[in-house]
């Protein structure tokens, strides 16, 4: 609750900042301080200190897991804003407005980590989505940005419609918006009286797939990620997606045991098609940004494993995956922002021009590809473990692995461009401080690559 309240307040404060305070730097600092406060307040709640303590009437349920995930989200956002302050300021003279939107998004994310009622899910998703539509279209003069915003908006609203239909069906069948108990009773076949219920779940499933950009509901992702200003794509692809996953898991993990093997089939279908589309199409991209968009679809395919069933690995894994993936993606986009073009050729010879930058980029890419010694490896390992622990067939794991190998194809294309192709990278000036910030992220990833448990150990104390 602290997080929701504080982030809303901070959002409002930032709104007023845009009138009161004109210097970008101050706004940036306020945002960072605000985030710090947000982190503290959330930690406070984890330790049992509440600002306002009242009964949410079954709307929200604060679990240690959810609160901890919140903390991680806030920390990642902190890193993100710290890194990208200058870039955000470039857009407009109203960076504070964007910061406000970020805080609102964080509020939405906090709701998604703690909702206990489908109504809150719906509101949370909307709070998360609406600022995103705006961020996507933030580059107002850019036709790509415009187009992306409209596409995102239309498809997002459509998926909201689907989500609502699903919720309605669930309500019709159970008479409640609560999601405490498994709503479906375990059984072999599909009992006739549960048809509508399962249809409802399936529709919710589809809508959630849209939010986390899983195939075949992923179509918005490449275009939106590509069209949106890079700095916001970075945020969209990380925190927002991770929050979506947490919500997704909250809905379905309690149900999955009851859903039976047809559920596994449906999920397998989605996982495989997501991995297929994400990985295969990414291979052919000429734009790094678009490649990353597709790769984020592919990563979503891996994260979907956590849905397969409830296990300790799924919870730990999704946290680890979310953190690692977010850090790596923020890092890669952070480098990409400094490029004048988005093409692979822009990276040619980066290793020579700026070895440190090339090195950190390599760490990010390795992490995304899941190469050992970077956090990405354990993230993937945990997800596979979760998949197997939930009783999935080895065949699914093997398919996942094959696609993981394909992913090396496109991530390494960038590595090749940086290290092995000679040329002059076409990039903006990169301040030393910025590089060191990226280096910090890279070091974090390396630490997670050797001691992944530092992320979720906190879950248990």
């Amino acid at each position, binding site marked *: 609750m602290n997080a929701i309240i504080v982030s809303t307040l901070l959002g409002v404060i930032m709104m007023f900042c845009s009138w009161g305070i004109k210097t970008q730097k101050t706004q940036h600092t306020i945002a960072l301080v605000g985030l710090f406060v947000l982190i503290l307040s959330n930690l406070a709640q984890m330790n049992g200190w509440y600002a306002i303590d009242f009964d949410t009437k079954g709307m929200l349920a604060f679990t240690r897991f959810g609160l901890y995930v919140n903390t991680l989200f806030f920390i990642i956002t902190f890193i993100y804003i710290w890194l990208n302050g200058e870039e955000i300021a470039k857009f407009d003279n109203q960076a504070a407005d964007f910061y406000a939107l970020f805080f609102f998004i964080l509020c939405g994310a906090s709701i998604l980590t703690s909702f206990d009622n489908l*109504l809150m899910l*719906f*509101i949370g998703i*909307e709070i998360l989505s*609406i600022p995103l*539509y*705006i961020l996507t*279209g933030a580059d*107002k*003069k850019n*036709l*790509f940005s*415009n*187009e*992306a*915003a*409209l*596409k995102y*908006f*239309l498809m997002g*609203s*459509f998926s*909201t*419609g689907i989500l*609502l*239909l699903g*919720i*309605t069906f669930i*309500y*019709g069948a159970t*008479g*409640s*918006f609560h999601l405490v108990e498994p709503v479906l009773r375990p059984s072999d076949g599909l009992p006739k009286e549960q048809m509508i219920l399962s249809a409802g779940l399936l529709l919710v499933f589809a809508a959630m797939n849209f939010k986390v950009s899983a195939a075949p509901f992923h179509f918005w992702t*490449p*275009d939106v990620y*590509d*069209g949106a200003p890079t700095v916001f794509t970075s945020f969209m692809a990380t925190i927002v997606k991770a929050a979506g996953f947490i919500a997704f898991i909250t809905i379905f993990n309690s149900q999955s045991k009851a859903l039976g093997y047809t559920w596994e089939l449906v999920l397998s279908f989605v996982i495989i098609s997501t991995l297929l589309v994400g990985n295969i199409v990414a291979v052919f991209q000429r734009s790094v940004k678009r490649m990353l968009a597709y790769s984020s679809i592919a990563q979503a395919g891996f994260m979907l494993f956590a849905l397969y069933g409830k296990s300790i690995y799924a919870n730990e894994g999704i946290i680890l995956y979310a953190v690692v993936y977010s850090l790596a993606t923020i890092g890669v986009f952070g480098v990409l922002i400094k490029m004048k073009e988005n093409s692979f050729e822009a990276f040619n010879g980066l290793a020579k021009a700026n070895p440190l930058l090339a090195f950190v980029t390599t760490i990010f890419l390795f992490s995304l590809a899941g190469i050992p010694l970077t956090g990405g490896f354990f993230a993937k390992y945990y997800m596979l473990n979760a998949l197997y622990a939930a009783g999935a067939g080895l065949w699914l794991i093997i398919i996942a692995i094959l696609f993981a190998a394909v992913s090396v194809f496109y991530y390494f294309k960038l590595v090749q461009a940086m290290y092995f192709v000679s040329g002059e990278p076409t990039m903006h000036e990169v301040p030393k401080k910025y590089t060191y910030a990226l280096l910090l992220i890279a070091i974090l990833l390396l630490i997670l690559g050797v001691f992944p448990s530092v992320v979720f150990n906190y879950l248990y104390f």
Partner: protein
Amino acid sequence: MPIEYYIFLCLTLFSIGVIGVLTRRNAIIVFMCIELMLNAVNMLLVAFSKMNYASAQALSPTTTAGIDAQIFVFFIMVVAAAEVSIGLAIIVMIYRNTHSIDINFLNRLKN
């Protein structure tokens, strides 16, 4: 009135909305069709609400069962209003830039 009738009605409206989304090119009309879908859902929720109320009333006359669905509808409207403001803002922005709101021309981003 059997609940199935309402379900059929609402599903029909919902599907008409879906078809509209699929077949029209004007962004505003598409958006309107989405609103239609939401309204169909709203009506269905209200119908379910009254269905639940009906069954609960038989047991206790003062029940408020089903009220949550009507509140839900209220929130859907709230959200829809917010969405519309943003949606129209985006559409207007696009119109300002391209003088068109034909979604078929929105294919600069592809492949």
